[in-house]
């Protein structure tokens, strides 16, 4: 793999609150994710995993506290590159082709030579042959590949994955795990929320369990990796 063209970046959550009219989706969450860590978040539905990831992606604003990016020396950085975000929704346009979608987002992000970049990513996710097909005609697995390609357009140092493997067949999960492994090994920081144990969750170097908006277990503070994951989706 080509040497990373990003600088390793971690995330710092400081006293994050997220309220929805009196209901706390997240309650005083403080976490330090070091550059290059691969973290899996586990927890029941509604435990706050999605909210935390969306706040990290800067899609949602915390009601209290702050989230910032830190470099490998744990100093805050004002990174201009946003994180790559993949969710259950594909976040690509059904009415456009795979190629058009990537070109659109590449241009919006001001990426140099957008056409080349889009083509390269389509090759890497194995969609080169279908690049001129409308996303509407794609299977779920293929849509996720477009989504990953979209997230990787600006070579982000941080990847946020919100239950991205749901709906994928075993082959799809396999491909996904391999892709994430490659991204992890290249030094990217990865945060993912998953339902249950799988090939993908086993790639993580750290597991954190959320319950009702608070951190209840963290392998960094001695909790057991397996037992955290088995609470997921319970």
């Amino acid at each position, binding site marked *: 793999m080509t040497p990373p063209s990003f600088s390793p970046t971690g995330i710092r959550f400081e006293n994050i609150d997220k309220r929805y009219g009196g209901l706390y989706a997240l309650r005083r969450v403080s976490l330090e994710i070091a550059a290059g860590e691969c973290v899996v978040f586990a927890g029941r539905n509604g435990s706050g995993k999605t909210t935390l990831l969306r706040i990290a992606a800067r899609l949602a604003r915390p009601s209290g506290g702050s989230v910032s990016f830190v470099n490998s020396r744990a100093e805050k950085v004002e990174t201009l590159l946003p994180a790559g975000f993949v969710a259950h929704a594909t976040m690509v346009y059904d009415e456009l082709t795979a190629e058009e979608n990537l070109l659109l987002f590449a241009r*919006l992000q001001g990426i140099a030579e957008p056409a080349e970049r889009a083509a390269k990513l389509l090759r890497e996710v194995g969609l080169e042959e279908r690049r001129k097909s409308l996303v509407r005609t794609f299977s779920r697995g293929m849509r996720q590949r477009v989504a990953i390609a979209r997230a990787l357009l600006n070579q982000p140092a941080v990847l946020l994955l919100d239950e991205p493997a749901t709906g994928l067949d075993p082959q799809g999960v396999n491909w996904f795990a391999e892709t994430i492994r490659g991204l992890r090994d290249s030094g990217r920081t990865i945060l993912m929320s998953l339902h249950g144990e799988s090939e993908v969750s086993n790639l993580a170097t750290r597991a954190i369990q959320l319950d009702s908006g608070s951190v209840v277990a963290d392998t960094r503070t001695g909790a057991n990796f397996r037992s955290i994951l088995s609470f997921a989706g319970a």
Partner: protein
Amino acid sequence: MALLSNTAVLLGKELRTEFRSRELLTTTTVFVLIVIVLFSFSFDPTSAESRRFGAGLLWLAFLFAASLMLQPCFLREQTSDTLSALRLSVSDPFAIFLAKLVANTLFLLLTELMLLPVFAVMYNVPVLATLHWLILVFFLGSLGVSIAGTALSAISAQARMRELLLPLLLLPLLTPILVASTEVTAALFGGSPYVQWKGLGFLAVFDVAFLTTLWLLGEYLLEE
């Protein structure tokens, strides 16, 4: 400037999507046509009064059509959560609004210009001599409708009963456009060689006021 280039790219996407399916244009055009025909059953379209009423009916038809055409504007960004993708990719969220309102203005204007000859024939109204003025008032009026409609569409997309809600919110808000545009258009239909600058100026003021407000409030409309 990033805002302009982002707007241009997004505008390209909006136009490409629409011209591929043409679903907004066709349904809107047919709807205005239906309204124009139905209106003709409400009174005698061949009488001299039709020239006075005609302008009002035409703009009413445009407004009704617009309030339906603008509904999918932000709703269609919800199906695959592409709105989040846009928010992650653009530097200034106003680009999203700017692109959509320019596209919507274009679509409305296209519909209006396609139906003008039909209307002129059915209601026996002379339009060729004042065509350039008509295009100008159609443009300024449609721009105002688009600006307000795009903004409100972002609001109604987040509420229940969104299909009924957008017309409910939008139509009272657009009263000034209806009044001013009708005045200018009626004068032109009536054969006046001069255009009412006061009316055009008023429409421009409306457009500027709402565009500025949208520019200031845009990011909050998309907030999560």
